[in-house]
């Protein structure tokens, strides 16, 4: 960990969330941000390059580089704004769409201009109110490129980039074998730029205030502010905008989490990793710092687990959810994840047989890296981190002494609906 990167930020500047208290109307948006600049594509792109913006969907890929690739493609291109937020512990995309939809819609227009797209989609989850809100916002505007709103079926892997593209092309919302990647051949065969809605919202601020302004906040290598979603006991998916590189402990405390009373923090969502709470609290909130600690920033999800909760049970429940939400396409995942989930359930609930341990270890070794998408890799990383961070409890469970709190209410949210693919 590099302590010098940690910034003391007693007052956190709100950028994307500057207007959330004043409502989602176009008038509020324009009052704060002014009109959309009429700059041409090359100027817009150099502003993005100067900003150093990294994608906010989880992978942290440089946005300008992705845009350059699509912009260089021949023929007509497509922009897809991903606001489907497949992570059950994330709420930042929904907040953005509900309270600042015009930043996202501005971002879509800017992205379309940069990659010369004449077709754009905004993908959402139905039943969350976002479709209605964004629809209302769209009717307050006159945009050059029409945006089609689409409600994605509710499945964890449906918002994976190749799954989105396959579904928008008329197929099921399931990942496809790559290459080709969407930027090569995407929606209906056209080169497609897929960006998370928060990334697009940042874009709308960067072209107005400049790349230098964007870099004034946050870590030098991963600049700007970041939307995080924090959960813990008594804290249900609280969204905050924070500068990157800030101490995770500060973020948790500001969101109302009792850090001293926590045993572990899930960082990065259900493809992320459990980290011991005292370690996580000291780490800067950045891709490089979390990678160095064996974790991942993902889409900025933090869930603090209280000391009296059973980490084995929490891990087992999410493992069962991830297993149920495999796309049923690739053998190692469709066989391996249910096997892993079954073993973890037995471990959590006191029906464990010690002869299963070698199988559990074997599955964790053979399942990752062999699917069309990263679902098996993410699920196994999550499970492995749980077995490691909660090792003391795992030993007790293996010895036939499951935690007393094993049946207490789950902290990690697990949607009960079965996955849908169309």
């Amino acid at each position, binding site marked *: 960990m590099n302590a010098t990167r940690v910034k003391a930020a007693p007052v956190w500047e709100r950028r994307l969330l500057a207007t959330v208290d004043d409502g989602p109307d176009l008038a509020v948006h324009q009052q704060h941000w002014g009109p959309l600049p009429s700059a041409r594509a090359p100027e817009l792109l150099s502003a993005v390059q100067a900003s150093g913006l990294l994608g906010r969907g989880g992978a942290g890929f440089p946005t300008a580089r992705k845009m350059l690739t699509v912009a260089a493609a021949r023929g007509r291109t497509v922009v897809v704004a991903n606001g489907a937020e497949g992570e059950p512990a994330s709420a930042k995309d929904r907040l953005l769409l509900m309270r600042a939809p015009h930043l996202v819609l501005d971002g879509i227009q800017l992205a379309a201009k940069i990659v010369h797209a004449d077709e754009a989609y905004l993908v959402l989850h139905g039943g969350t109110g976002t479709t209605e809100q964004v629809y209302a916002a769209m009717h307050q505007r006159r945009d050059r490129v029409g945006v089609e709103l689409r409600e994605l079926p509710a499945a964890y892997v449906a918002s994976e980039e190749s799954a989105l593209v396959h579904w928008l092309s008329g197929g099921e919302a399931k990942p*496809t*074998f790559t290459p080709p990647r969407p930027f090569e051949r995407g929606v209906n065969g056209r080169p497609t730029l897929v960006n998370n809605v928060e990334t697009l919202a940042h874009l709308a601020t960067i072209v107005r205030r400049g790349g230098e302004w964007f870099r004034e906040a946050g870590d030098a290598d991963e600049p700007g502010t970041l939307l995080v979603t924090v959960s813990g006991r008594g804290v249900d998916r609280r969204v905050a905008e924070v500068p990157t590189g800030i101490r995770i402990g500060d973020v948790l405390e500001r969101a109302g989490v009792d850090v001293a009373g926590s045993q572990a923090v899930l960082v990065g969502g259900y493809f992320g990793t459990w980290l011991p709470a005292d370690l996580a609290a000291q780490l800067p909130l950045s891709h490089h710092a979390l990678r160095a600690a064996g974790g991942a920033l993902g889409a900025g999800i933090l869930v603090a687990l209280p000391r009296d909760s059973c980490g084995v049970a929490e891990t087992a429940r999410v493992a069962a959810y991830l297993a149920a939400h495999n796309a049923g*396409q*690739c*053998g*190692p*995942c469709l*066989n*391996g994840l249910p096997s892993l989930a079954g073993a973890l359930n037995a471990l959590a609930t006191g029906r464990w047989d010690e002869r299963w341990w070698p199988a559990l270890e*074997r599955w964790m070794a*053979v399942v990752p890296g*062999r*699917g*069309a998408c990263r679902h098996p890799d993410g699920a196994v990383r999550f499970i492995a981190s749980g077995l490691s961070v909660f090792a003391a409890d795992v030993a007790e469970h293996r010895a036939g002494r499951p935690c007393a709190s094993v049946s207490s209410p789950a902290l990690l949210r697990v949607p009960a609906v079965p996955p849908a693919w169309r």
Partner: protein
Amino acid sequence: MRIRVNPIDCKAHGVCAEMLPEWIELDEWGYPILDGEELPEQLMAHARRAARACPTLAIVLEGGGR
């Protein structure tokens, strides 16, 4: 030459592991585990035969000429 399996097309027939046992073994559900993506020169002919024999054509060979 690079060798990959298209895991969506693969239906665990296991032909590849029979024809290229030096490079491919099967997991407990019958799906292939490859010993890496870069295939040694001396296995290229076997690999091409295995790719042609796969009932779902799930073996993907890239580069290395024909």
